[in-house]
């Protein structure tokens, strides 16, 4: 399938245009990627070269010393564990209960539906930083401070609205007739949902889980306040430890940043085909 306009000017001109487009695309990629390049370069070069003046644009010597130091920090693996548990926990729970609500919104008309839609959109606007103290007091009353469950619960409510909204678009995109056919074939409503709707929802679930994962993985203000034990903190907070009173350990910080971003980047690389599709579907059906 070619989507570029197929007809038009003579082939020669088209080739030239394509070449120009390619060049512009590559320049753009280089500019976008430059901060990443500099991060990796800083992470892999010896400490004495990091502060070279003027900076060296290409790597001279490579070293793993910063990565070794980062991984050797006492709480590193505990922090990885926290990040993974919080990320996966948030994604799973928000998908589970978000799908139910999305289904209700897409397939039923009921009193209060409009209000729910409004609330779901409005929640996006609540500034998280402003809620720290009230949230902390609430979780403290529930005995959920310094607990991963408390953090997951908090993230959950900030992810849910987007999850519900996006999935709603997907469910709306599944023809009702398919579901009805399954129901006349003897499936229950739930059975029909499971056998017909759920498989078609896969791209939506992927897109949503990415969104939730990135948010949960990156957030640090709430996690910092809610998790006081050093070994329960997440990787985002662990990164702060490279800024000491001795100055910023840029080598360690960039190595830590690389390690923190890596799992998400790998995950993205696997599922990126679904990302844009999912978001578009959510929007189109919105």
């Amino acid at each position, binding site marked *: 399938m070619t989507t570029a306009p197929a007809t038009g000017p003579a082939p020669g001109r088209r080739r030239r245009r394509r070449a120009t487009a390619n060049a512009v695309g590559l320049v753009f990629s280089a500019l976008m990627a430059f901060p990443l390049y500099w991060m990796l370069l800083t992470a892999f070069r010896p400490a004495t070269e990091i502060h070279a003046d003027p900076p060296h644009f290409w790597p001279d010597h490579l070293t793993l010393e910063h990565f070794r130091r980062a991984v050797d920090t006492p709480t590193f693996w505990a922090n990885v564990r926290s990040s993974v548990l919080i990320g996966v926990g948030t994604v799973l729970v928000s998908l589970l209960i978000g799908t139910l609500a999305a289904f209700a919104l897409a397939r039923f008309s009921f009193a209060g539906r409009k209000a729910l839609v409004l609330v779901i*959109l409005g929640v996006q606007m609540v500034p998280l930083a402003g809620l720290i103290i009230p949230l902390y007091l609430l979780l403290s009353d529930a005995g959920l401070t310094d607990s991963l469950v408390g953090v997951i619960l908090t993230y959950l409510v900030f992810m849910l609205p987007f999850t519900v909204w996006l999935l709603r678009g997907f469910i709306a995109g599944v023809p009702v007739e398919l579901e009805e056919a399954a129901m006349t074939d003897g499936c229950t409503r739930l059975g029909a949902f499971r056998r017909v709707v759920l498989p078609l929802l896969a791209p939506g679930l992927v897109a949503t889980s990415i969104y939730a994962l990135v948010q949960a993985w990156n957030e640090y*203000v709430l996690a910092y306040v809610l998790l006081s034990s050093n070994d329960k903190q997440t990787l985002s907070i662990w*990164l702060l430890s490279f800024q000491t009173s001795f100055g910023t350990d840029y080598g360690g910080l960039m190595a830590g940043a690389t390690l923190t971003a890596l799992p998400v980047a790998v995950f993205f690389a696997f599922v990126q085909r679904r990302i844009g599709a999912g978001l578009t579907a959510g929007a189109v059906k919105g």
Partner: protein
Amino acid sequence: MGTVELPGPPRAAPPPHRPRTARAPRPRRTLRRRLLPYLLIAPTVLALAAVLGYPLVDLVVLSFQDMTRRELFSGAPPPYAGLANYRSILTDGFFWTVVGRTALFTVACVAATMVLSLLVALLMRRVAPWVRTVMTGVLVAVWAMPVMVAASIFRWLSDADYGVVNWLLGLLPGLDFSKHNWFEDPWQGFAVITGVVVWGAVPFAALTLQAALSQVPAELAEAALVDGARPGQLFRYVTWPVIKPSAVLVTSLSAIWDFGVFNQIWLMRGGQPEKEYYLLGVYSFIESFAVNRYSVGAAIAVVTVLMLLVGAVVYVRQLVHLGAAE
């Protein structure tokens, strides 16, 4: 389909305006069926009400009180202050400066993000498949960067003494950027901060728009060109109507996120932003946690939400309209 082609969404369904339950309620609708939607939304509603609604009410109550650390530490109920907090911020010229600055910042970030993303998305439809793979790869990698990491990188790039940006600019003839501090002048500082925000936002926006562009029927575009449409007309009458819903969604989400931006400023200014760098989110946070005027901070947060709501009313109405029609 090229290797990096983003597959389209499930589009088996005909246009969305085919309400089923709304238009044709079936007679066999029992009580159980009527209860079902409420059961389905119950977990979501409960979670939102408990973990978000309750603190939000607390926040609003707090904004009408005068809470100091004494009440915070002892748990004693703070005295009520009526509208005093709101009066003090709304009559403070500085507050309105921050509001204006936040609005300007939001417009700049959203405009830059959208224009750039649209250009990138259009470009991605024209380049060779391998170039598209490279572009997608870079976009995805950037998207995966935590904001904490992005802010650290940009801070490091723009460092006055060792920043590579100063050095690169210094290579251009006639420019001396050695030891140039980007944050001394807030306009330049905000340029860098806008850079981080846009850099982080473009992947989401560009990939979404790119996927939306793949929905433009090739035959339609061809037919338009055969009919002698100019590229501008083609975009306006063929491409834009298809990608408009996606563009509206991305624009609104960006606007909401950028209006409440906090992390980037906080991290780039090392946790001590100067007054020139206050946006509403930062201002509210500082009033609460640095100056310990929790109630004033709460009032600022409440006003921020109200402003966003007013600003978003058109968009929300449109969405509710769409949602209700199904």
